[in-house]
Each structure stands twice: as structure tokens, then as C-alpha cells.
């Protein structure tokens, strides 16, 4: 195969990746999009394999590696629970990062095998350096993110979902970052013995990845996971530059910009600036609640709630992550079906950060076979609350806090689901504990609000029985 043919096939693969992402613009076309992605990948792998076969014939180890990895990947993809998707994605980012580092090391070891000159020219060295350090940061950062998401903090303090902070943290990170770039420049300049600066630079990048993620708290994980998604793309693009491969550059940039946009959306939904998320230290501490005055809440039984629900015309369900933790999605779907049979219109309102990663709650509801045309995004459904008879809030707190509309409150400006505008509000929570933001929620004390305390699954199951 000529170099031109190879490049053209790679172009086909790159276009397939663009079409894959385009397919995700709506659920009906999404599966076709995924097939485009698979096709692009298959083309890229097949022509690369053909290229290697025509040069050196040593394709057996490659195929062996692919089979081993493929079997593990297929097994994991089949077994993973939808609540564990954030962990899975974090783990996968770490693999991309680590592989980028391995490829860079292999390229420094044997440039010719990768189609580079020996010794590697200056520009390619700079590109290798960029690919390596982004890859290393992606790897170690994702390992920490995985540990935090998987709740390994009990066993190992670094994985604590509470931020791990110490004095001078940011200065240390800055110093490490400068040192890392310094050794990168040394690698760039080195005529001979390029290994020592390369190894030190890589080690520093690994360390930096750990240190950058440990101070970020559990509540900010949706941002972190999107950010690491972005990094894994830039790492791929960096490797693409060093190997003179435009397809890697295109695919990497697509992923990089995707992750960046998702980070932006998540930050906006949480009313946090990207910089303050990165600097960390939020999400574990509970801010002191200033108000001490005793306020009364009205609490009711599932029977009372079921009465209200059955007599409503429109019910909007607002699920939060507490619902997923209690594994109550299927019970909710059952409740919705029952209500629909009674002629009640049921809709779902999803806040962008309702789960632990972007779009997580949508997947959890889809898994419970909730039809996606009943599920609405925050902006699309907020205008409907004033006409809704009942807003049923399950395991959500900060995302329905009307304080966000009040100047001076810590969450002022955060976009919320306007459940307080519904005629009646039903709230299921386990206790009156505050949410991640650590502030009280006036919604719970409103006259039209009725609290139903208890585990979400138990309560919803009781509701299902009571509605009959």
C-alpha cells in the first residue's frame, strides 16, 4: 500500500469519527453514529495492520494484544452497571493516557519503527514531549478520579471523595509543572543521552496528575471526568503530531473539544468557575449553616402522597442521584406507568448535574425503560412547572433550591429546576441533611411542600402500592 493510499484510508476513518459524533444529536440516529465510529476504527486498524505486514510481517504480537484487550473490554462492557459508568469511563481514560506514554517511550527507543528519523528531529521531540506529559497526567489523574468515584477512600486516603488538601499545594504543583517543562526543554535540546530528562519529565508528569486531582471533591467529579476526557483526546492528538498522522490529530481534537465543552456545561450547571474546580477544596466540607431559627416542615405518609399524585392532572418527577443510589429507578418507572394508566400526565425533569457524570441520569432512566420522550432537560421543562399539579422530587436537593434565585446566597446564579413553582411539591429525602453545597433548602419549608421521609426505593414502592 502506498503512503497516499494509506493517508486516504485514514481520511475515511477521520470522517467516520465526525459522523459518529454527529449521530448523537438525537436518540434515533445515535446507534447509527456508533456504527460509524466502529467502522472508522476498523478501517484505521485494518490499514495499519496491512502497512505493518508489508514492512515487517510481525503482526502476531499485535493481534495477540488486541485479542487479550478486546476480551477484557467486551467482558467489562457487558458486566458494568449503569451506576458505575463514571468509574468505567475514568478507568478507560487512564488506559489511553498510559498507552500514550508507552508509545512515546517506544518512539524514543526506536524512532524508525514509528516512521521517524534517527535521531529524532527537534520538532518531533517537542511533540513527543507534549503527548507524553498530557498522557501521564491523564493516567494518574484518572486513577485518582476512578478511586474517588468507586468509593475507595475507605481503604486509601488519597482516594477520599473529600478533598485532600495541604499547605502550599498550589505552589508545589506550580513548581512541579515548571520543573517538568524544564526537563522537557532539556530533552528537546539533548543531542545525546536524551533518556534521563525524558524519564524525569515523565515521572514528574505522573506525580503532577496525582496532585492535581486529589484536592478536587466528590461533588466536582462531573467536571473532572469531562476534563480528563478532554485530556485523553489532546494526548491522542499530541501523539498524532509526533507520528505525522493527521487522522490521530483529527480524532484527538474531536475528543479534546468534546471533553472541553462538557466541562464547560458541567461548570455552568454547578455555577462554578473552571479555575475554582481545578484549584479544588470544594465538595467535601460542609459549610456552616447560618440560619438557626427553627422552621417547621410538613411531613406525610406515602398514602397521603399517593392521594395527591392520583388526583393530579400533571406530575413532574425530578430525580436526583439519591434515587440512583437507592436503585429506585425501576420502581419510579412502575409508579409512572400506574399514574399514566389513571390518566395522569407524567414527565421527568433532569438537571445537568443530576448524576455523577454528564447525562448520567438519562442513562439510568433509560435503563429502567423510561421512554426518552417523557424525559426533559431543565431548560425545556422549567416553564411547565406553574401548570403542574405535583412536582415529585426524589433524592435531589441543591438542584431544586430556590435560594439560587436570591442574591447573596452561596449558590446564587446556579441554574435550578423550578419545582417550587408547581402547585404542590412532594419531596422524598432520607433526612433533612443538606446537599453537597451544604446549605439549607427553603423549598422544604414552603406551605405547599410535603416531605416524605425514607429510603427512596421503599417510599416509591409504597407509593406504587398506595396508588392502586
Amino acid at each position, binding site marked *: 500500500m502506498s503512503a497516499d493510499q494509506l493517508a486516504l484510508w485514514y481520511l475515511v476513518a477521520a470522517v467516520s469519527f465526525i459522523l459518529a459524533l454527529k449521530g448523537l444529536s438525537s436518540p434515533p440516529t445515535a446507534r447509527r453514529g456508533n456504527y460509524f465510529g466502529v467502522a472508522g*476504527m476498523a478501517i484505521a486498524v485494518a490499514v495499519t495492520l496491512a502497512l505493518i505486514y508489508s514492512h515487517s510481517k510481525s503482526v502476531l504480537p499485535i493481534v495477540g494484544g488486541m485479542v487479550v484487550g478486546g476480551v477484557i473490554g467486551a467482558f467489562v462492557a457487558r458486566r458494568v452497571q449503569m451506576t458505575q459508568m463514571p468509574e468505567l469511563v475514568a478507568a478507560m481514560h487512564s488506559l489511553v493516557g498510559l498507552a500514550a506514554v508507552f508509545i512515546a517511550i*517506544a518512539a524514543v527507543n526506536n524512532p524508525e519503527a514509528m516512521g521517524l528519523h534517527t535521531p529524532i528531529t527537534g520538532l518531533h521531540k517537542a511533540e513527543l514531549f507534549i503527548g507524553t506529559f498530557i498522557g501521564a497526567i491523564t493516567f494518574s489523574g484518572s486513577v485518582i478520579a476512578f478511586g474517588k468515584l468507586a468509593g475507595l477512600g475507605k481503604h486509601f486516603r488519597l482516594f477520599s471523595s473529600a478533598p485532600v488538601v495541604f499547605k502550599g499545594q498550589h505552589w508545589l504543583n506550580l513548581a512541579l509543572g515548571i520543573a517538568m517543562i524544564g526537563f522537557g526543554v532539556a530533552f528537546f535540546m539533548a543531542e545525546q543521552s536524551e533518556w534521563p530528562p525524558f524519564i524525569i519529565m515523565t515521572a514528574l508528569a505522573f506525580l503532577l496528575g496525582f496532585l492535581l486531582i486529589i484536592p478536587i471533591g466528590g461533588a466536582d467529579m462531573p467536571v473532572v471526568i469531562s476534563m480528563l476526557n478532554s485530556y485523553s483526546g489532546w494526548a491522542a492528538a499530541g501523539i498524532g503530531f509526533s507520528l505525522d498522522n493527521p487522522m490521530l490529530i483529527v480524532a484527538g481534537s474531536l475528543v479534546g473539544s468534546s471533553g472541553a465543552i462538557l466541562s464547560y456545561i458541567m461548570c455552568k450547571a454547578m455555577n462554578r468557575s473552571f479555575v475554582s474546580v481545578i484549584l479544588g477544596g470544594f465538595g467535601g466540607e460542609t459549610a456552616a449553616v447560618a440560619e438557626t431559627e427553627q422552621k417547621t416542615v410538613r411531613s406525610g405518609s406515602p398514602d397521603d402522597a399517593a392521594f395527591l399524585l392520583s388526583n393530579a392532572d400533571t406530575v413532574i418527577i425530578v430525580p436526583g442521584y439519591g434515587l440512583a443510589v437507592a436503585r429506585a429507578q425501576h420502581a419510579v418507572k412502575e409508579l409512572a406507568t400506574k399514574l399514566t394508566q389513571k390518566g395522569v400526565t407524567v414527565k421527568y425533569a433532569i438537571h445537568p448535574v443530576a448524576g455523577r457524570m454528564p447525562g448520567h441520569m438519562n442513562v439510568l432512566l433509560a435503563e429502567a425503560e423510561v421512554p426518552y420522550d417523557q424525559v426533559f432537560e431543565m431548560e425545556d421543562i422549567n416553564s411547565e412547572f406553574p401548570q403542574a399539579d405535583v412536582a415529585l422530587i426524589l433524592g435531589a436537593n441543591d438542584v431544586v433550591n430556590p435560594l439560587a434565585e436570591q442574591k447573596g446566597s452561596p449558590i446564587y446564579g446556579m441554574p435550578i429546576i423550578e419545582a417550587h413553582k408547581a402547585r404542590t411539591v412532594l419531596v422524598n429525602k432520607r433526612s433533612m441533611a443538606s446537599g453537597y453545597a451544604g446549605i439549607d433548602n427553603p423549598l422544604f419549608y414552603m406551605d405547599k411542600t410535603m416531605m416524605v421521609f425514607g429510603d427512596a426505593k421503599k417510599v416509591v414502592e409504597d407509593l406504587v402500592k398506595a396508588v392502586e
Partner: protein
Amino acid sequence: MTAGVDPIVFYLTIFVLAIFVGYHVIWNVTPALHTPLMSLTNAISSIILVGAMLAAGSETLDWGGWLGVLAVALVSINTFGGFLVTQRMLGMFKKKEPKPGDKE
């Protein structure tokens, strides 16, 4: 015009344009599918498999070559796992009852 231009300039052009394409395509993704978007982009980022294959495909498999083989195995977990789990998730997104005459 192209004579004398360093190839890196072309790659930079591709890079910048690809970011623009990515920006516009991603903003069109419906928020409901952001989790599948992440697993799909994750699968796509395993395109560095191509680099790993080149590293693993040298004639003499020295330690660097074996490192490439290891990278191939690691990234393949992503490639296969990423696309499969995306497919699994997308399979869950169903409409209530397809009404006749409804376009897809």
C-alpha cells in the same frame, strides 16, 4: 504555494480545523446522550491504537516493541469496551410507542 511549507503547518491547519468541527458537532449532541457521548469519545480516543501498533510492529521485538504490544492490549480494552458499552447504553433509549407515520 505549498512548496517549502513545513508539514507541521499542514498538521496545525488540520488540528485547528478539526477543533472547529468538533466544537460545532458536539454542541449539537443532545444533553440526554452526554454519557454515551463520553463513552464514544473515549472509544474514539483509543485511535492511538494505531501508534501502539506501529510501536509493536517493529521487525525486531526489543523491549520497546513489547511495550508497544502492552500498549496495544491496554488500548484495545478501550476500543472494544468503549464501543460495546456505548451500544449497550444507546440500546436502552427507546421511544414509548412508535406512532405510525412518525419519522425516525
